C-alpha cells in the first residue's frame, strides 16, 4: 500500500507556513530526486504534458536555471519570461500577467519579485501552482530548502545542529527562510552581523544574535555566509567593502577557531573578498557548489509535490 502523503498545498510560498512534517517530506522527496540526477538519462516523465513558467521580475542566473533544469528533468515544458523584455514594461500588472500566463495553460508559475508578498497575491488570483523564487526581503523558500538539504546530507541530521547565518540579515530573504526552516527542524540558529544589518526584534525568531564573528564561528557546525547586496544600495552603513571584509569577512584565519567539521555555505553569487575570501570559498570546508547541485533535486521535489497536490489543495 502506498504511504500516505501529507502534501496538500497548491503553492510553495514560504517556509514560515510549512509544518516540520511538510519540510521533511520535501527533503525526503528531494533525496529520491537526487538519485534521478545521477542517472545516465537524467529525466523522468512525472511532469510530462505540464507547462512551467519562470516569471522573473529580478535578475537571476542560478535560481532560474536551476528551476528550468528541474522542470526539464521532470519532462515539463518550460517558458522563461524575463520582465525586462515583456509587456510588464508596458504597464501590465502582476495579476494580469499571471492570468495571461494561466490562459496559456500553465500548470506552475515560478515567480521572483522585488516586492515582498507578490507570490501570495499571484497565488490568490490564479489556479496554477505558484512557487516563490524569492520575494523582496521576505522569503526564498527553495534556497533555504536546498541549504537544509545540503546540511542534512553532509552532517546526517538537522536537530541539535548549530548554524550561524552571517551577513546582511536585515535585507536577506535567504536568512528569513533559513531561520524558519532550521528552527522548525530543531537546529539552533545564530545570526551574526554588524548592528545596522540586524533588524530589531530578531530574537523573537528564536535565534541568538551576535555582532561578534569569532563567536558565531566558534560554536557552529555550519555557517551560511550571505551576500552583501550592493545592488540594493542598502549598505551605506558601511563605508567600504574593504572595511566590511576586515570586520566580517570569513577567512581561513578566522576559521582557525572553528570546529573541525564546520561546513561553509553561501547562497551565491559570491563577492570574493567582501563577505568571504577566495581561499575559503574554494577550500575544503566549502559546500557552495554542492548547494547548487542539490538545488536541482530540491526544486524537482517541490515541482513534483505542488503539481500533484492532493484533492482539496489549499
Amino acid at each position, binding site marked *: 500500500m502506498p504511504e500516505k502523503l501529507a502534501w496538500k498545498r497548491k503553492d510553495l510560498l514560504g517556509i514560515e507556513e510549512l509544518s516540520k512534517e511538510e519540510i521533511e517530506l520535501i527533503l525526503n522527496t528531494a*533525496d529520491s530526486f537526487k538519485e534521478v540526477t545521477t542517472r545516465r538519462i537524467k529525466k523522468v516523465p*512525472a511532469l510530462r504534458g505540464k507547462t512551467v513558467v519562470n516569471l522573473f521580475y529580478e535578475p537571476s542566473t542560478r535560481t532560474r536555471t536551476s528551476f528550468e533544469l528541474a522542470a526539464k528533468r521532470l519532462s515539463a515544458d518550460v517558458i522563461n519570461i524575463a520582465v525586462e523584455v515583456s509587456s510588464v514594461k508596458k504597464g501590465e500588472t502582476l495579476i494580469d500577467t499571471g492570468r495571461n500566463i494561466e490562459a496559456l495553460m500553465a500548470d506552475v508559475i515560478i515567480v521572483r519579485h522585488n516586492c515582498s508578498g507578490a507570490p501570495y497575491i499571484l497565488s490568490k488570483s490564479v489556479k496554477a501552482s505558484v512557487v516563490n523564487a524569492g520575494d523582496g526581503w521576505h522569503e526564498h523558500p527553495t534556497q533555504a530548502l536546498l541549504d537544509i538539504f545540503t546540511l542534512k546530507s553532509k552532517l546526517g541530521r538537522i536537530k541539535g545542529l548549530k548554524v550561524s547565518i552571517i551577513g546582511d540579515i536585515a535585507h536577506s530573504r535567504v536568512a528569513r527562510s533559513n531561520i524558519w526552516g532550521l528552527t522548525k527542524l530543531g537546529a539552533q540558529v545564530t545570526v551574526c552581523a554588524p548592528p545596522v544589518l540586524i533588524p530589531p526584534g530578531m530574537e523573537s525568531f528564536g535565534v541568538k544574535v551576535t555582532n561578534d564573528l569569532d563567536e558565531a564561528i566558534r560554536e557552529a557546525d555550519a555557517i551560511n555566509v550571505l551576500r552583501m547586496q550592493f545592488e540594493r544600495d542598502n549598505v551605506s552603513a558601511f563605508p567600504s567593502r574593504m572595511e566590511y571584509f576586515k570586520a566580517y569577512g570569513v577567512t581561513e584565519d578566522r576559521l582557525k577557531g572553528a570546529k573541525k567539521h564546520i561546513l561553509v555555505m553561501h547562497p551565491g553569487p559570491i563577492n570574493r573578498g567582501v563577505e568571504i575570501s577566495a581561499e575559503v570559498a574554494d577550500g575544503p570546508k566549502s559546500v557552495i557548489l554542492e548547494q547548487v547541485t542539490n538545488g536541482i533535486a530540491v526544486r524537482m521535489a517541490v515541482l513534483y509535490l505542488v503539481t500533484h497536490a*492532493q484533492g482539496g489543495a489549499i
Partner: protein
Amino acid sequence: MGFTEKAKIMDKEAVEKALIRMSHEILEKNKDTDGLVIVGIRNRGELIANRMAANIKEISGKDIPVGAMDITLYRDDLTQVAEQPVVKETVIDFDINGKMIILVDDVLFTGRTIRCALDELIDFGRPKNIQLAVLIDRGHRELPIRADYVGKNVPTSLDEVVEVRLSEADGTDEVVLCQKN
C-alpha cells in the same frame, strides 16, 4: 476504504517453495548466469528479489547483482491516484547494458506497473532481454504483458485485493485474498 480478509492463498511454506521453484526455473532458462541480474520493484518486489538472489546463490553458488526500482515517476495515473505514493530511490548500481534482467514484483494485475518499470529500465540502458517474475498473477491485464515465472495463478474479481505479506516488512510470510468494503 477498508478490506475484509477472505481467504489465505499461500502460507509461509507455500511462499518459500514457490520462490525456490521460480529460482530453479530462472537458472534452467538462463544457463549462463554471468549476464544475469535481478531488479525488484519497490516495495515487496525488492524483498522478493533479494530472496530469489539468495536462493540462486544457494543453488548455483553464483552471486547475482540485485537492484531496486521505484516506478512512481513513470506512472500514467499520477494525476488520478487518490493517495499519492511517496517517491523512493531507484538503486541500480550496475550496468544493465547487454544483461539479462529478471524483473520482480509481488502481484501482476493490470500490467501498468510493469509498463512503468520497462520504460524506466530502458532509460538505464539496453539490456539483452527482460524477463518477468511475479509471486502472484491475479489476471485482469489491461496491457499485452505476461510473466515468465509465476509463483501462483489466482483468479480474482475486480472488487478483490491480493495482499502479499513478507516477514521483512510485515512480520509474516503469507498471501491473503481480501474483499474491498
